């Protein structure tokens, strides 16, 4: 637990899609631990480490905006790809005007969070994988603005800007400081890859803008 990181992330829009409303996407009120983990992994990740989100600070007011877009309705079929690879004359493209669905997204607007997290070593860690090394690489990348790919808030059209918060540095102010408890209901925690990709949920409670995230990966199965 010694290697904790604090990352300030912000952006214009975000959509942390609720699994129960994913055809016409509706975002959760705040970032999910799994989306926060995705942001950390977009900056730095190796199979030897596993990011665990400890706490999420909600900085900006929770506000929604809707947008409706033309989307396609189907995915690319492996069967068609195979037969085209085998040289068969096959219709291998998608005609968007014929396969169109208009879908709405209820997204968050003007978001800002601080993600507090640490990482744990996994079974893939070898003899040369010291926690110090991975921590240093992450800190260097976050400081210099380097990343594997641009992190995003739920969907790739909503980029996340990031900044490392140093150990001595104070936390950015939250709009919810001093507002007491707010129940955000059941939220997706993450997918448990060890337990066959089962989705795990937790009861998110925001207290003065801070959500404590339980480590459900540790609890039993």
């Amino acid at each position, binding site marked *: 637990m010694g290697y904790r990181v604090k990352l300030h992330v912000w952006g*214009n*829009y975000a959509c942390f899609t609720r699994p129960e409303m994913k055809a016409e996407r509706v975002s959760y009120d705040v970032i999910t631990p799994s989306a926060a983990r995705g942001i950390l992994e977009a900056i730095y990740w190796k199979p030897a480490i596993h990011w665990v989100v400890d706490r999420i600070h909600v900085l900006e007011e929770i*506000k929604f*905006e*809707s*947008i*409706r*877009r*033309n*989307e*396609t309705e189907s*995915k*690319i*079929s*492996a*069967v068609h*790809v*195979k*037969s*085209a*690879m*085998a*040289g*068969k*004359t*096959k*219709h*291998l*493209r*998608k*005609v*968007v*005007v*014929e396969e169109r669905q*208009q879908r*709405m997204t209820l997204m968050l*607007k003007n978001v800002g969070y601080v993600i507090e997290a640490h990482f744990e070593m996994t079974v893939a860690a070898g003899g040369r994988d010291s926690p110090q090394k991975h921590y240093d690489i992450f800190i260097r*990348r976050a400081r*210099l*603005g*380097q*990343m*594997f*790919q*641009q992190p*995003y808030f739920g969907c*790739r*059209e*909503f*980029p996340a*800007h*990031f*900044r490392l918060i140093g150990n001595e540095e104070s936390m950015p102010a939250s709009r919810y400081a001093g507002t007491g408890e707010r129940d955000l209901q059941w939220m997706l925690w993450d997918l448990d890859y060890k337990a066959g*990709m089962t989705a795990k949920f937790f009861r998110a409670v925001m207290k003065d803008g801070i959500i404590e995230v339980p480590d459900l990966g540790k609890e039993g199965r």
Partner: protein
Amino acid sequence: MSKPVNRCEFTFFFDVRNGNPNGDPDAGNMPRIDPETGHGIVTDVCLKRKIRNYVEIVKGGEEGYHIYVSEVAALNEKHRQAYRALREEDTDKLKELKPSDKAESYKLTRWMCNNYYDIRTFGAVMTTKINCGQVRGPVQFCFARSVDPVFSQELTITRRAVTQEHSEKEREMGRKHVIPYALYRMDGYVSGNLAQQTNFTADDLELLWAAIQNMFEYDRSASHGQMALRKLIVFEHNTILGNAPAHQLFERIHVENTAGFPVRDYKDYLIDIDRTDLPAGVTLIEK
């Protein structure tokens, strides 16, 4: 083999005059507007559509530059017969839904990336991978927003012909929504790491820049009015991970409205790019 691609950020400005750059299906095809601030919005997918159309026009189905997500039905599917087959056996097992193993799904996605420019660039959701089934492309587009709040005007138009036979009327009326003038800005990203994964090369990147510069030239329509690309600014890093935070680079680009509101002309905007003390390893290119 073309050179690999390093990380890039890019910003482009485009304007619209007397047109509707992107209709909102939720609002009777009025231009998209941020309800809170009044700024105009053009979605990422709207702009990506134009990139695909441009590549389809200039490359004309050239090997390796096909467009998967197409707007027109494919006229000539025959050339696919010429495709080199990577696999020779097993073409009659068409009922099979999933590739048998990871190696095969890798082959399938690789083949799609190599043949389709849009998949290599923007990625695609394919059922060809076993658990997550998608290719992330290196190029990330975001919503474009207008620099100033926009004003959307509704024009009523008439047609001197009627739909129904034997109608009493002599003409019918319709509606058009236009924005008199607006300048939009879009910020985007190119990930060098994801470029490696999809085989997106420096040549592909050059084609992307050309597509951005020309996409509106091939996209004329009665509803779009006059649209034009005004400026494309690229921040090129000399490493794959990049050398500076993206937001700090984007903040170097300032747009100023020199006329006060309302603006009706591009020359009333001043785009100022701060080129001083660029972070080491970052090159600013204006195209």
